[in-house]
């Protein structure tokens, strides 16, 4: 708990103290979780700093108020607006238009004719993009719900032995616990306590198809990826269309709006799942460990050669614990996985499930889809909702 310490504050005018007091709620409006303790620390910092040098003030206050790279990146702009440029108006929030098929336009940015708003608890990353191609829906309640369901999913993944885990052999006595209890019995260790070994975190590799046909599902899949990075997992996130790109560092943030379009410049339209998987095997082979689970989120419409996809899937399935394919079309009435890409991949998929929104995600997790299947990869062990 911060103690109120007025030593050294006597040199500051009431106007300065008021400005710092007003700065805290101003930052809260922009997603910073700060309060009175930060204000007090900031005042103590200002007592140490030279108030006539703005850079020095910025360095001092940034270390107090910022708590993440995203906040670190956006702080100078907010500092300038509050202390150096008080006349600046709020910029209008840019909104993403949804897909045409759901009755909206095609993902272009438009500005609304409405008063400026600041999105609740969402904050741009350290390099905010002017156009978020696959932005999350700004719906904190859904994010929390997705996270809650993903938490349940984590318990199902295969967990490798921990760092100090020894299978078989003699377990180690927990001398601390044994001794504490033995004191009650005049130093006689009547009951031995054993060391508890925790298994390691599960490894998950998540591949998200961001081709045009998956556009309407991209926000949910991004939310899913984000939720995986918030849990006790070793999670690596990739997106692919014609090529593969690792985006873990872009998604694994406390406040995330999506993946800036500039980061996806090298990904062209179309889908080549085979080539993307080859790139995964070739460049990121170290992630495909014996206990890893690979989750592919795609509708399976592939423009590449089916043989390349088949060979890549076969190699992938042999190297990891199990492969789960999330197909957002599987819940559509009349859909059958008979496209060339899907047909080539099917023999090497352990679980094949419909996930396209929160409800289907909850249903999939309740159906224990991430429990490893220990049957050999071939012949086929496919689990569909209908079979």
């Amino acid at each position, binding site marked *: 708990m911060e103690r109120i310490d007025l030593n050294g504050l006597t040199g500051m005018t009431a106007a300065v103290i008021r400005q710092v007091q007003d700065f805290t709620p101003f930052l809260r409006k922009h997603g910073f979780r700060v309060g009175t303790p930060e204000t007090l620390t900031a005042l103590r910092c200002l007592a140490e700093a030279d108030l006539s040098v703005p850079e020095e003030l910025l360095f001092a206050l940034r270390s107090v108020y910022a*708590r993440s790279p995203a906040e670190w990146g956006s702080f100078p702009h907010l500092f300038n607006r509050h202390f150096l440029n008080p006349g600046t108006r709020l910029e209008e929030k840019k909104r993403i238009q949804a897909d045409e098929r759901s009755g909206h336009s095609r993902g272009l940015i438009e500005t609304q004719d409405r008063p400026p708003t600041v999105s609740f608890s969402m904050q741009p990353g350290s390099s905010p993009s002017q156009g978020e191609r696959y932005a999350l829906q700004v719906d904190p309640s859904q994010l929390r719900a997705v996270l809650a369901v993903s938490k349940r999913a984590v318990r199902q993944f295969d967990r490798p032995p921990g760092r100090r885990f020894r299978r078989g052999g003699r377990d180690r006595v927990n*001398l601390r616990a044994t001794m504490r209890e*033995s*004191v009650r019995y005049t*130093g006689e260790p009547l009951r031995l306590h054993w060391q508890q070994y925790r298994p390691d975190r599960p490894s998950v590799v998540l591949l998200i198809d961001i081709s045009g046909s998956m556009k309407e599902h991209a926000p949910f899949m991004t939310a899913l990826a984000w939720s995986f990075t918030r849990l006790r997992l070793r999670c690596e996130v990739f997106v692919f269309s014609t090529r593969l790109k690792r985006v873990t560092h872009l998604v694994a943030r406390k406040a995330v709006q999506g993946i800036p379009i500039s980061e996806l410049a090298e990904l062209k339209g179309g889908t080549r799942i085979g080539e993307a998987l080859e790139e995964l095997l070739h*460049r*990121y082979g170290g992630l495909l460990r014996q206990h890893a689970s690979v989750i592919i989120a795609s509708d399976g419409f592939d423009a590449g050669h089916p043989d390349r996809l088949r060979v890549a899937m076969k190699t992938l399935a042999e190297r990891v614990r199990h492969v789960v394919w999330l197909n957002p079309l599987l819940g559509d009435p009349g859909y059958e996985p008979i496209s060339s890409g899907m047909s080539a991949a099917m023999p090497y998929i352990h679980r094949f499930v419909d996930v396209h929104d929160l409800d289907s995600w909850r249903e999939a997790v309740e159906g224990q889809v991430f429990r490893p299947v220990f049957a050999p990869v071939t012949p086929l062990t496919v689990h569909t909702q209908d079979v």
Partner: protein
Amino acid sequence: MVDDRVEKLRKCLQNAKYVADEGLAMVLYLAQRLNRPLLLEGPAGVGKTELAKAVSVVRGVELIRLQCYEGLDAAHALYDWDYPKQLLLTRATFSGEAGGAAPDIYTDHFLIERPLLRALKTKPAPVLLIDEVDRADEEFEALLLEFLSEFQITIPERGSFRAEVPPTVILTSNRTRDLSDALRRRCLYYWLDYPSVEQEAAIIALHVPDVAPTVARQIARAVRRLRKWSLLKPPGLAESIDWARAVADLAAGELDESVTRLTLGCLLKTQEDLELVREKGLALLWNA
């Protein structure tokens, strides 16, 4: 003047072979003045741990390091009791060999000081480095809270130990997981990113005096380019310095294909990254 004191701190760090910019020097100065722990976050290999070492050299005090890992608990970080010794005394007492009086087995004689307790008791106040705190569990973070806010440790059998002069505490994190807000609130924060080309060249020149200034700049530019290539293990400052040492040992006046090919292992640490760089062409490195 604060400016002078911050500048003096920068110069002292430079003498300890650490190049700090104004912002970092300012935050370090504030952390010491306000007795606040400093949380450093940033990519691996940008000099977070080195900063703690440099601060201990500048202040001329001991560096106590607590390396965090999954499963780290109070018994390894705060304190522990010497149970075998306690057990022996208890047995001796009850068998009549130690005079028969009820023994006090919770004295300093049986207390094993772990890094956090040692940091509170050591004089002069040391620099305590809690390295890679993100690798520890959430439970350990909760253990740290009392220590970071009060510089105090409570031992149920003995009461509370509080530091007369608080140690300088530096926590580092590579963001393998998010730290709790409670922990962050107790610290000043600094995001330590990769240095600029000029800064990196200066750091290389400081650590490898034998390397020519033009080569140091070439290396800094090449490493900066590599960091943009989405490698599995982007090269940090340590790799830049290793590479510069290797180039200096080969007495190369400049980077070229043969030197780069011979020394690439100093820079890239995975087969996948090596292959990617070779595919893109080594020429991109010395022409960066």
